[in-house]
């Protein structure tokens, strides 16, 4: 069985159940076009009467939109009564399909999910074949609102008694997402407020700086942030209530006081722990327990052969040569006396830790040690640090003797946690209340640095005209104008640059060659865009896209079909590219008072740009 139903079978199944007209939402434009091709190859044909009805509607539309007449799919649509509707088509063709659908001439339309919002026609049935949609690079699951937006197209008011949302499985479907989308409550919407440079310039043009904060506070963003802040404030109130039993005690800020004291105490405890297993006496002695030294032991005496620390027992150990030649190991702490007497010996790295000759000598010496030997006076240093800590603890902190010490000790953990929570909430509320304003300020600083605003936040001469550019990448465009990048520019080069700034799709394709003038200017633009990167995300600046626009403007005799042949871009994409370029150019045109030459160039470009299919729609 095929992974998904064949489009012709699908429409036949729907027809047999009287579920047409239908909108079939598919994953991609390619899928829509493939479905159309399947119909083109099939033997399906509508009865002549219906074919004539379609032809009549199309003929009527051609008078308004001449490009429909040349559309390659026209005859197929007429024969099979099915059409594709996606962003790759020209707007005029999409209008034609919508009109056919509205008049009930078509049985089905294959559309992409991505453009569900732009599909402004209902049908009896909506077919859903997928549960995810391509957003920028990867596929994400449809949200509940999106599923309802899709399913909502089903059921025409006044033409249907019921509408159907029919699911048909494909490898891209997750049943759970769709059923949840159909039965669930739509998601809450969130503000997506961003502070753009033109917004700042326009705000500061119309309002003094001290009113701006109030204006920003009117945004839905701030409204929602305030809502969140209010929730936090309620939480804060609750925390304050919980904090009540931990109010001031003998010292007002007993929590910090205890915290510092506790810290100091712990640090002291920590140091003692390190020293614990070595008494000061032993530490002092260790440096004298060198090989050859005669020491006293609880029973008898011995000569040190080596001193070491065993891994098993953490304490320092010594290897001793006892009278009679026995070699024994014992902890250094068992040494009772250290005599002021050492013998020469040759050390060795292995047992018995000294050279055989000197060992014999040592054994001899050990056997006849003098009865009395002078004891080495060793100065034992009391640890000064420890006493100091105890001293400071007692001096600086009243805690050890404070009457509320037990209570403080008991409550401290809870109180500290509460207080930290309070601080955190305070900070978050602060951030929520003033975040927008801070963002405004930081962007204002950028504009001041670049010279659009005076230090007093008034528009400079540059700012006065720069505020008229209210599109994406406005900073790049105004900086380009300031850098005189466009002086003496040809209309087609200007349009090419604008389209490469405007275009944000990275779909690859084959494109016409670019002129050297445009290429070098584009390099300059790219350089500037990179230098502005900390302040504004650089656009894609595709040279191939610029070339498409350049051709269209540079050669007024080029037909639409001719342009489409130059590239692999879909018609609808070229249309959108040119329409966006038009938008950018018309923004440049608004600068006619300050930059008459540039505005004139833009208006010339606009004039040439608006021809053929681009003239059909306002």
């Amino acid at each position, binding site marked *: 069985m095929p992974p998904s139903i064949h489009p012709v079978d699908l429409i036949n199944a729907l027809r047999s159940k*009287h579920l047409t007209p239908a909108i079939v939402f598919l994953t991609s434009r390619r899928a829509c076009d493939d479905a159309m091709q399947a119909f083109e190859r099939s033997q399906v044909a509508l009865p002549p009467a219906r074919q004539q009805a379609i032809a009549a509607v199309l003929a009527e539309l051609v008078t308004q939109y001449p490009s429909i007449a040349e559309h390659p799919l026209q005859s197929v649509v007429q024969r099979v009564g099915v059409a594709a509707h996606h962003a790759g088509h020209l707007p005029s063709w999409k209008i034609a399909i919508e009109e056919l659908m509205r008049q009930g001439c078509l049985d089905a339309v294959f559309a992409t999910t991505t453009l569900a919002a732009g599909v402004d026609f209902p049908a009896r049935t909506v077919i859903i074949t997928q549960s995810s949609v391509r957003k920028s690079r990867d596929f994400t699951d449809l949200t509940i609102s999106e599923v309802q937006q899709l399913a909502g197209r089903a059921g025409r008011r006044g033409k249907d008694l019921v509408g159907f949302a029919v*699911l*048909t*499985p494909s490898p891209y479907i997750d049943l759970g997402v769709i*059923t949840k989308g159909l039965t669930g409550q739509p998601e809450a919407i969130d503000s997506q407020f961003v502070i753009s440079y033109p917004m700042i310039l326009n705000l500061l043009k119309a309002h003094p700086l001290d009113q701006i904060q109030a204006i920003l506070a009117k945004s839905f963003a701030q409204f929602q942030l305030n809502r969140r802040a209010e929730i936090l404030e309620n939480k804060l109130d609750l925390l304050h209530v919980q904090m009540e039993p931990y109010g001031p005690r003998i010292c007002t800020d007993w929590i910090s006081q205890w915290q510092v004291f506790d810290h100091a105490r712990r640090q002291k405890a920590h140091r003692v722990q390190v020293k614990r297993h070595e008494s000061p006496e032993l530490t002092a002695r260790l440096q004298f327990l060198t090989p050859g030294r005669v020491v006293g032991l609880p029973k008898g005496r011995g000569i040190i052969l080596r001193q070491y620390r065993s891994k098993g027992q953490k304490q320092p150990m010594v290897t001793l040569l006892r009278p009679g030649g026995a070699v024994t190991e014992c902890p250094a702490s068992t040494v009772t006396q250290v005599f002021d007497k050492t013998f020469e010996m040759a050390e060795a790295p292995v047992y018995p830790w000294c050279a055989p000759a000197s060992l014999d000598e040592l054994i001899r010496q050990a056997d006849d040690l003098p009865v009395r030997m002078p004891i080495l006076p060793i100065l034992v240093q009391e640890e000064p640090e420890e006493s100091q800590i105890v001293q400071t603890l007692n001096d600086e902190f009243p805690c050890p003797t404070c009457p509320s010490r037990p209570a403080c000790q008991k409550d401290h953990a809870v109180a500290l946690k509460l207080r930290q929570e309070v601080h955190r909430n305070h900070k978050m509320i602060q951030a929520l209340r003033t975040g927008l304003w801070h963002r405004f300020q930081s962007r204002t600083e950028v504009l001041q640095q670049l010279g659009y605003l005076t230090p007093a936040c008034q528009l400079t001469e540059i700012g006065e005209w720069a505020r008229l550019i209210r599109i994406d990448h406005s900073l790049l465009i105004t900086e380009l104008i300031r850098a005189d990048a466009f002086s003496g520019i040809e209309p087609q080069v200007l349009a090419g640059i604008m389209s490469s700034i405007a275009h944000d799709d990275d779909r690859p394709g084959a494109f016409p060659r670019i002129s050297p003038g445009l290429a070098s200017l584009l390099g300059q633009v790219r350089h500037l865009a990179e230098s502005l990167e900390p302040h504004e995300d650089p656009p894609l600046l595709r040279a191939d896209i610029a070339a498409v626009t350049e051709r269209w403007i540079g050669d007024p005799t080029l037909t639409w079909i001719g342009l489409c042949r130059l590239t692999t871009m879909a018609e609808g994409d070229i249309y959108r590219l040119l329409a966006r370029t038009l938008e950018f150019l018309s923004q440049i045109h608004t600068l006619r008072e300050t930059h008459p030459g540039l505005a004139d160039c833009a208006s010339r470009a606009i004039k040439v740009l608006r021809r053929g299919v681009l003239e059909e729609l306002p």
Partner: protein
Amino acid sequence: MTTEELETLLEEQPVNRLHRLARGRIHRHFRLGKRRLIEALLRCTPENRPGLESDLQALMQEPLPAPPVAAKERRPAGPQPTRPGSPRSAHPVQAGSIESAEPATDLTSFLEGIGVPAPQPFVPDAWQEEAVARLTTGDVIVSVPTGSGKTYVALEATRRAIAADRTVIYTSPLKALSNTKFTEFSRLFGPDKVGILTGDRKDNAQAPLLIMTTEILRNLLYDAASGEIDVRLDTLGLVIMDESQYISDPERGVVWEETIIFCPAQAKLLLLSASIGNPQDVADWLTSIRPDPCHLIRHNRRTVPLRAGYLHPNGKLSPLFRSVGIPHGQGGALHPEAKRLFAQYEEETIRPRSR
């Protein structure tokens, strides 16, 4: 209906019907008992009383689900109108593992009622009239399902504003939609009454109804704020923003906010939106920044009822849910047949790939 009447009516309802009514209106309504539910319903809806009442009426039309005991008795003798030998009757127990109060609907009743309604004079719904009426006193947000007649509200409001000699601006998010609306409105109001503004072109800019994208309106408002006015904003009586759920669009949402913030005080705002989760928030926001209170109209009843189906790649159609319509909220159990077919589909497509 007075509050007392409504209260007694609510008291007569079974509690699960009240929960359905409270869905989307009361936060965590499932936590409440019947008494508190009624109190909460009465408390939270002084603004939305008509919507609540109409929803209640609609709910009362629907029969209550039969108690489970009755269903068990009915099942063996069940009406089984399916064709003999259909696989569904072969596996009813295996597929329908979820115990449900009612037997799952069958294909015949699922497909029943397809057809064209008899032409009848257009009578606006209560909420549509309410929306238009409320526009005289303040802003209005309409958040209703797709295709339930938002355009009527826009048209009627426009007609009244034009009659009162005010200018109307209609904004849409997409140029394509602007064009469609331009054609539609020109047909309805006459071409001399409708103008369209784009970045570089003004067609009939003196017309009382102007259509533009939201970006263009934002730019107009900025120009007006800085004193370079070129459209008669002082006579502006109504701003209609279609598809206003775009306010949450990551790239363009900010434009909707700017437009609403700078919309002249004397102009009324009419926000048309698809169903969204928190229209009350948007309404509260508008109330907090606009001179007049904002009225919210919301419901999730569809004018044309919607059913969900499942079409198997072999052409077999089945209802998607056990009930004929689309169940709302949790617990919408899938139809056993759809479940079985989908399991079969997954078996056939996913298993070989992983091998």
